[in-house]
């Protein structure tokens, strides 16, 4: 590329028929730019991070001190050990809900119109946001872990803690793209907020995040056993507590990959079709 100066009026060089490589490099550049922008926005809205952490703490306290006694005694387990890794996964899932709400709000703002008139990769608008949200997720997971430590929870090892947070972030990232697709389709933030209750609550409560599958009614068990949040909860629990995880890590990564395979192209198509 060459750049020509006209007095002080500099114009970027025109890229007319970019190769696939250049196209990808420009898309990566745009994603990085949108990530920069969304990170500034996240830092200016600390309430988003606070909300995620407060919800995590809320679940820790609510389930440990109120339901914990009966669930733990019923299943014959140390409930705090069971609960904290589950709340990691739930916190990451709520991060995905924030992607959905954040993107929907973005779409109502005028800046989206400018993005669409700029020589930029339109995928980058969503990709940058999901990455920014994943970074925020890691921050809220660390804060939730600290609260867990204060309540008396202990990780089996440092590596296990890192693995647990990484895996929770991975499944959260897959759901972020689902949230993005819903936002790109529905567009109205309040409607997106309402809709998120329909996927968030069943996934969250009918899972092994808060209670072992054996404590649930038989008709519900098949759904609970195989849905992504259960697989992720079991896998994260194994990593955090240093217990055997079996195929759960692969199953969780498989779910994350499947979500990406479905919702990356879907959300990009819906976003473009506006």
């Amino acid at each position: 590329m060459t750049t020509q100066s006209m007095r002080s009026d500099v114009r970027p060089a025109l890229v007319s028929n970019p190769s696939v490589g250049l196209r990808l490099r420009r898309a990566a550049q745009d994603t990085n730019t949108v990530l920069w922008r969304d990170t500034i926005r996240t830092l200016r809205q600390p309430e988003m991070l606070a909300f995620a952490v407060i919800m995590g703490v809320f679940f820790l306290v609510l389930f440990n001190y109120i339901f914990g006694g009966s669930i733990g005694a019923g299943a014959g387990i140390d409930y705090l050990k069971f609960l904290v890794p589950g709340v990691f996964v739930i916190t990451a899932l709520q991060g995905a809900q924030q992607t959905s709400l954040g993107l929907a709000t973005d779409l109502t703002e005028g800046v989206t119109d400018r993005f669409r008139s700029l020589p930029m990769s339109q995928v980058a608008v969503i990709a940058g946001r999901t990455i920014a949200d994943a970074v925020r997720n890691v921050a809220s997971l660390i804060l939730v872990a600290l609260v867990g430590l204060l309540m008396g929870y202990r990780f089996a090892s440092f590596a296990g803690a890192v693995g647990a947070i990484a895996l929770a972030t991975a499944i959260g990232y897959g759901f972020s793209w689902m949230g993005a697709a819903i936002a790109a389709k529905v567009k109205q933030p309040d409607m997106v907020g309402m809709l998120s209750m329909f996927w968030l609550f069943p996934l969250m409560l009918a899972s092994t995040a808060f209670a072992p599958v054996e404590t649930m009614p038989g008709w519900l068990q098949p759904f609970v056993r195989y849905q992504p949040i259960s697989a992720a909860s079991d896998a994260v629990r194994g990593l955090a507590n240093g217990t055997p995880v079996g195929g759960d890590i692969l199953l969780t990564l498989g779910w994350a990959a499947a979500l990406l395979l479905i919702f990356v192209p879907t959300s990009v198509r819906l976003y473009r079709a506006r």
Partner: protein
Amino acid sequence: MSSNGDIVAKNPGPVIEAVNLSKSFDALEAVKELSFTVSAGQVVGLLGPNGAGKTTTINMLSTLMSIDAGSASIGGFDVETQSDQVRQLIGVAGQAAAIDEKLTARENLELFGRLYKIPRTERRRRAEELIEQFDMGEFANRVASTYSGGERRRLDVVAALVANPPALFLDEPTTGLDPRSRTELWGVIASLASRGTAIVLTTQYLEEADRLADHILIIDHGQVVASGAPEDLKRELDRDVLEVHVVDAADFTAALDIVGPIEGLVTDSDARRIGIPVGDGAIHSLDLLRSLQDGGVSIADFQLRRPTLDDVFLMLTGSPIDKEEVSA
């Protein structure tokens, strides 16, 4: 690869070209076979009331909306099939401020500069230059959600200029601005044109089109009802307007009876004002005033003036531009 300036220089034809542009929304034909060209340094004004199809036209030309029929090109690149290239050549300032509300003006310019792929040092220098040139230093480091309407609008227009685009689309750029900011922005638009930018400007303000545009398209219901240089459009009427202001409501009714139905007559009962098109200026006016006086009409004052675009619009479409919307 070459710079955008070269691309335009190599194509001596128009920078912006629209040929039979059409767009429908369900049953509504928003734009019907609109054709026009804009060459470097030219300002074309699209003038019309709300719903005339001005914004739809801008949206099609700036790749924001698909084209139903006809075609458009920017710098020789087709808007539909070569939108990647087109987006590198255009700047758009829409009716809704297309800026990031959570970022400062400086950060907004950095964001758009990065997305235009302007190298770091150049985009920083460009941002400083624009902030200084447009007198935005006072609020450049404040988050945009705290801006006044004028500050927000100014940043929106400036954001369209980050990459020095050879083609600029301004959709009602001065709507909602105070008179001082409006005059300032007029100066900016004129200076951009003088430096070779091809500009399409939509407006509901007749004065604005008159002041800025080299060529005006008057649009009503998606169709061009007249086009030409502002002076030519006004000459097309080939008559002056005698504006008579009468004393009371009875005078107003009496005056209307005497004048009778004339094509292009403008009446305003609240202000008790009548605008009468007069063929041969002074002589006809004297006759009219005399017959009003003979008919017992008390005249508060009168004035003989050249037609405004308001009169032109009324002549062509049979209805005045909605005053409510213009002043909104």
